[in-house]
């Protein structure tokens, strides 16, 4: 997030696109609702009628995968109506003219046709966003989990820059991160292209810096494989061994059937986790890990806030914190630089090699929390990004062209399947499915289907149906609701009994490599 969670309360207008905030980030959902109760306007753009719609001034129910068209259409309205922030654009941004030209392709008629949203509604929403400043833009996986997710993200940034909604209180482009430490995992360089603090591995000077800091030589300089690429490489026999920590890809990866075969091809698989997971049958060694409640360290939340936490209970059996296990393996492989005896010592090293975490020290974190960038111990942290300049200097307007979902419905697979999250479960359910109460409220998978479509198929509420895509089939009960429009069906992915990712399309974004979870073509068969 460029801004803070609390900051949402300062906005006069909130545009929530591709995020079912009340279910996925309930506390942020609460802030949005409260902002509305205090007089802010809310625009919800979502293929589904999510709970926040109740509080919205405008609800734009666009078809899955048409976000670029919608956002560019709104930008076009803002420019046509002369509501863009000329001063901000001139002093802080570049490439506006090119961008403006690319808007020509997004006439309201075209946008309305592609998105299925009434043209006048789009126009009004755009005007509201541009005129009720400060405006805050929130988005989540509904924007990123597409084959053109990167362009979607650029489209949100374009819109915010166009209206000068960056770098001030109550504004910003605010992606809401799904897992509690996704932000931190990225910050710490658990990515194939960067060291901690987004320092590129291809940069020779940076490699040298890390070689010196770590006392090693020959750090690899070519970008590594992303998760989807890893699975391709396992399949082709290139990757032979995997060290897998605290993940559960057997349910969360797209195109699950394919994956099962892939795992069997590994010569050596180490799994380090807190629970036996669906991936376990393929493991050669399994290492029991301590859960968050049994260890200390820091997490970085979606607003870049680093928080220290201490253990609350002892670990069960022989379970150990992940850092300890990895250090032990490294030491047994003869490596130096892994003699850490506490998380504090690791954080000390992070402070030294990660400029944005330079001032986020153990000592300070015992008293407070800090938002990065925080380069030195006398720096107060940075609640709002880009107040004076963008990271790269000028904000770059990105001309965009329309791209829809990679797989469109056709005669054989007439429905668009989109995936969602339930308030009562989390991710692949390894944690929440262990909780009786949460299972009572929500214990199985549903396929949400529009009443008209249900009538066409002769379905009643609760009928078991088979959902079939080009890649596989799963069964689930039909839940008849008009939350999503005709032609769109919705499933969650918390339930290994109905593994939705058997169906989803592994086609992914060329830059971010995020798979297209939010739209694929399916057919529904009555059983």
């Amino acid at each position, binding site marked *: 997030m460029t801004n803070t969670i609390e900051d949402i309360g300062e906005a006069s207008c909130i545009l929530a696109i591709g995020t079912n905030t009340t279910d996925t980030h309930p506390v942020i959902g609460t802030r949005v609702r409260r902002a509305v109760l205090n007089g802010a306007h809310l625009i919800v753009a979502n293929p589904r009628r999510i709970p926040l719609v109740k509080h919205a001034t405008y609800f734009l129910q666009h078809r899955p995968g048409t976000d670029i068209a919608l956002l560019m259409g709104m930008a076009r309205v803002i420019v046509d109506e002369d509501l863009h922030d000329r001063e901000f654009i001139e002093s802080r941004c570049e490439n506006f003219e090119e961008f403006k030209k690319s808007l020509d392709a997004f006439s309201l008629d075209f946008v309305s046709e592609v998105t299925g949203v009434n043209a006048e509604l789009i126009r009004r929403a755009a005007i509201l966003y541009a005129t009720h400043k400060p405006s805050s833009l929130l988005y989540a996986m509904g924007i990123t989990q597409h084959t053109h997710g990167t362009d979607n993200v650029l489209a949100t940034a374009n819109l915010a820059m166009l209206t000068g909604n960056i770098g001030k209180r109550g504004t910003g482009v605010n992606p809401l991160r799904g897992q*509690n430490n996704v932000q931190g995992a990225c910050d*710490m360089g658990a990515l194939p292209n960067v060291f901690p603090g987004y320092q590129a*591995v291809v940069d020779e000077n940076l490699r040298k810096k890390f070689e010196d800091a770590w006392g090693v030589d020959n750090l690899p300089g070519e970008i590594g494989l992303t998760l989807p690429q890893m699975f391709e490489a396992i399949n082709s026999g290139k*990757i032979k061994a995997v060290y897998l920590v605290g993940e559960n890809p057997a349910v969360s990866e797209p195109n699950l059937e394919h994956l099962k075969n892939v795992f069997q091809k590994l010569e050596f698989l180490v799994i380090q986790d807190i629970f036996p997971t669906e991936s376990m049958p393929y493991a*050669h*060694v399994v290492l029991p890990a301590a859960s*968050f409640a049994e260890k200390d360290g820091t997490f970085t939340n979606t607003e870049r806030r680093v928080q220290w936490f201490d253990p*609350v*209970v002892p670990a069960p059996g022989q379970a150990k914190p992940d850092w300890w296990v990895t250090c032990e393996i490294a030491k047994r492989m003869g490596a130096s630089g892994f003699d850490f005896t506490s998380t504090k010592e*690791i954080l000390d090293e992070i402070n030294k090699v990660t400029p944005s975490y330079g001032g986020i020290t153990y000592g300070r974190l015992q008293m407070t929390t800090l938002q990065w960038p925080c380069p030195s111990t006398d720096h107060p942290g940075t609640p709002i990004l880009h107040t004076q300049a963008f990271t790269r200097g000028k904000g770059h307007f990105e001309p965009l062209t329309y791209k829809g979902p990679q797989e469109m419905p056709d005669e054989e697979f007439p429905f668009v399947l989109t995936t969602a999250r339930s308030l009562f479960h989390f991710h692949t359910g390894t944690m929440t499915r262990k909780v009786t109460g949460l299972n009572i409220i929500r214990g199985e998978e549903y396929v949400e289907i529009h009443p008209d479509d249900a009538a066409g198929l002769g379905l009643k509420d609760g009928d078991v149906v088979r959902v079939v895509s080009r890649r596989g089939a799963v069964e689930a009960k039909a839940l008849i609701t008009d939350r999503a429009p005709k032609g769109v069906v919705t499933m969650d992915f918390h339930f290994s009994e109905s593994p939705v990712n058997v169906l989803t399309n592994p086609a992914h974004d060329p830059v971010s490599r995020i798979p297209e979870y939010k739209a694929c073509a399916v057919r529904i068969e009555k059983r």
Partner: protein
Amino acid sequence: MGKVKLWIDGQEVEVPEGTTVLKAAEEAGIHIPTLCYHPLLRPSGNCRMCAVEIEGYRGLPASCSTPVAEGMVVRTNTDRVRDFRQETLRAILRDHPRECIACPKNQSCELQELIAYVGIEVPYEAPTEKRFEVKDGGPFFRRDYNLCVRCGRCVRICNEVRGVGAIVFKEVEGRQEVGTPLDRPLEEVGCQFCAACVDACPTGALTDKIPKWRAEAREREDSFCPEISDIVLSLYDRYRERESKSSICPYCGVGCRLVFEVQDGEIIRTVPDPSGPANKGLDCVKGRFGISEFVHSPDRLKTPLIRKNGSLEETSWDEALEAVAKQLSKYKPDEVAVISSAKCTNEENYVIQKFARAVLKTNSVDHCARL
């Protein structure tokens, strides 16, 4: 903002304009009893427990909703105020059951505190009206409106703070009672099961259900003597030491700070921490009710396992780590990959990527940020 000077019980107090008399008194170290007041909520002034005398004001205004004024003279402890408080409290208690010893809130109940502070004797004659049935709050909490004192804190927090409005005041047999529209189950009225209402309730009307893993003890007591099992269990519970510890919710990216109540190495309950910078006293059903059961799940991995003759068998750390180190040493950098976790700490992710790069010499390290 300007400052305002006033006198409370003869003490001179200076506070910012717009402060309530209640807050001003608090700042001066003068206690005024309250019931419907809650720090997260706008004052509603409906219980009148916080009444005080203010020179020049008619009647006894509610201090929680009266703003200070320059030169105001406030008295919080006159006979008239004390009589009024006692009368008010008696009225509230008139239809409150006398079953404190079995109540889950016993000894942490604000009503009991009020009785002690205000100094009244509880008329030991139980109310005779017919009782409401105890309702469920989903699988997570129970709603026993017989114990309700109609302070409205639950209704207001659900509406004002959570923005949900699942519960409302409505008229039942000529009286205001808390409930859901048309008495529908909470599941059907948009309840998020955040338990903000439970945490705001001053009495035992809204309380957590006993979680599954402790229901066993309850069963044992029940088979012994059902009449007093509630009492035995609640007393037993109170004598076990309970520690409060603080940590961060492991679920979503909001990073709510939660207070963990721990007994004998077991998380009994988690409640949101009002000082958490990201959540400011809020949480959701996953943080509130979804943690202890998975942390203490019997399914947790507890020993290292190693595959021998086709099946995973228990082994020692030493053997497991040696096996991993030996095997991983065999592969060339482009034959191995490391998958880290968005559930691990920063320190762990740091160590894991360092391991991939410095030891395995590969940049093929990634995590599931994409999902």
